[in-house]
């Protein structure tokens, strides 16, 4: 059966490039998700309480940071993608490590983006009702955005030894 050899025969570059794509693509999806969740609530609440407009852009910035984590990881990972004339075992390691690092970073940022988005939405609505609540809810969002950072840290550790020589 040809399926039995599929993992052996797949080129490590296949895995590595998909990993880079996942890192940036899924992170951006998470950031976008978070921004639209926060943005719509912010727009609705700002109609009757215009004072919340500027402060609550911080929630949007936290979501944006998630996309930036994704870009940073993708750039770091793609600098390791050199062309080699002959594949050795280290290259297979590099391929797998970059793929799963990309998956880790992408999914962590997806969850982080959604989390910060929902918190930001609640923050905008609460701020519109009672201005003193804003700073407290921002602390919740800060904890939420730390989740993306965890993903980035692990991703960096995973790819630290990956090298296509």
């Amino acid at each position, binding site marked *: 059966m040809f399926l039995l050899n599929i993992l052996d025969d797949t080129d490590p570059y296949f895995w590595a490039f998909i990993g880079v794509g996942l890192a940036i693509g899924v992170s951006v999806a998470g950031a976008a998700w978070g921004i639209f969740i926060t943005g719509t609530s912010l*727009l609705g609440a700002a109609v009757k*309480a215009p004072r919340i407009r500027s402060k609550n852009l911080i929630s949007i910035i936290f979501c944006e940071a998630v996309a930036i984590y994704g870009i940073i990881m993708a750039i770091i990972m793609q600098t390791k993608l050199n062309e080699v004339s002959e594949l050795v075992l280290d290259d297979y390691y590099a391929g797998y490590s970059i793929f799963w690092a990309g998956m880790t970073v992408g999914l962590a940022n997806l969850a982080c983006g959604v989390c910060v988005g929902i918190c930001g939405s609640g923050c905008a609505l609460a701020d519109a009702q009672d201005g003193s609540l804003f700073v407290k809810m921002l602390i919740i969002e800060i904890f939420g955005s730390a989740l993306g950072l965890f993903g980035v840290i692990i991703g960096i550790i995973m790819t630290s030894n990956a090298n296509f020589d």
Partner: protein
Amino acid sequence: MDWLLRLWVLQPGSMATFNVDDGYLEGLCRGYRSGILKTTDYANLTQCDILDDMKLHLAQTDYGDFLANESKLTPTLIAEKCREKLINEFFHLRAHAVEPLATFLDYITYGYMIDNIVLLITGTLHERDTSELIEKCHPLGMFDAMATLSMSHNVSDLYHSVLVDTPLAPYFVNCLSEEDLDEMNIELIRNTLFKAYLEDFYHYCQTLGGTTAEVMGDLLKFEADRRSITITINSFGTELTKDDREKLYPEIGFLYPEGIARLAKAEDIEQVRGAIDYCGAYRNLFQETSFNADKSLEDAFFEYEVELNKLAFEQQFHYGIYYSYLKLKEQEIRNIVWISECVAQNMKSQINQYIPIF
């Protein structure tokens, strides 16, 4: 692992996807809610001596200059203007809504449509002038064919146009026929239609699922129970038979099925009290009325309704806030009317019997 995510997070109405279609309107509705009069506003209003003072105080609230062009203030005029503002807000929300919120908001208007249709039926039976009837209709319950409805000269035409033109056809078809419309007492018709409407609305909310089903379920169950209890108490001493009465009880509600069965057999208020006794909330309401001579059961129900509707705003990402906002604003309009009547008739002793909301 991905399918887990899809299953739980991406359910319709869940936190992660609610804001795509309904996020803006939720923020807008909560903005409207923050304009509901607070205890400080009521304190100012109750200290007014004339209606013009009330107009001044209302100008500083969310109502703004809505009475600016009116020269002669009366309580009915103030109520009409307040209601007009509420209706503008509701239609603004409805205009921006997409499915399924649009259907949900339409369901809210069906209750008012039932009142309007009953008004038109009564008017047609008593051969009143149709244009004056349309003026008395509640604006939230208007539908396109209202003018043609009032053109019908006998009840048979009315019945057929209602079946064709309004979304209330299922409620008529299931429980009323053309002969019933002529003979039945008009209140029976109203209550039968409303029972069908409540049950339909409840089941629709359950299909929406999630937080909406939970919040709206509680609100509609209370409404159903309130109607059952009120119908029972109002039917003592009338010629409504117990069987007919039982047919008017909605089949949703905390009292269904046990309490309803007992209510159907009740003959005086003590038996009603016994029937609802197992429901803690209603038992407390009845106890409040027995301790406090000034407070009627109706007032106790209004107070409890305000509590439930306030709770709806505690959760995010559901449709219950639109229903609750409408009910709270209606209570606010009742309060303003009460206070303005007390001020206009100079009966300040009872002015504090409004129901505070926030």
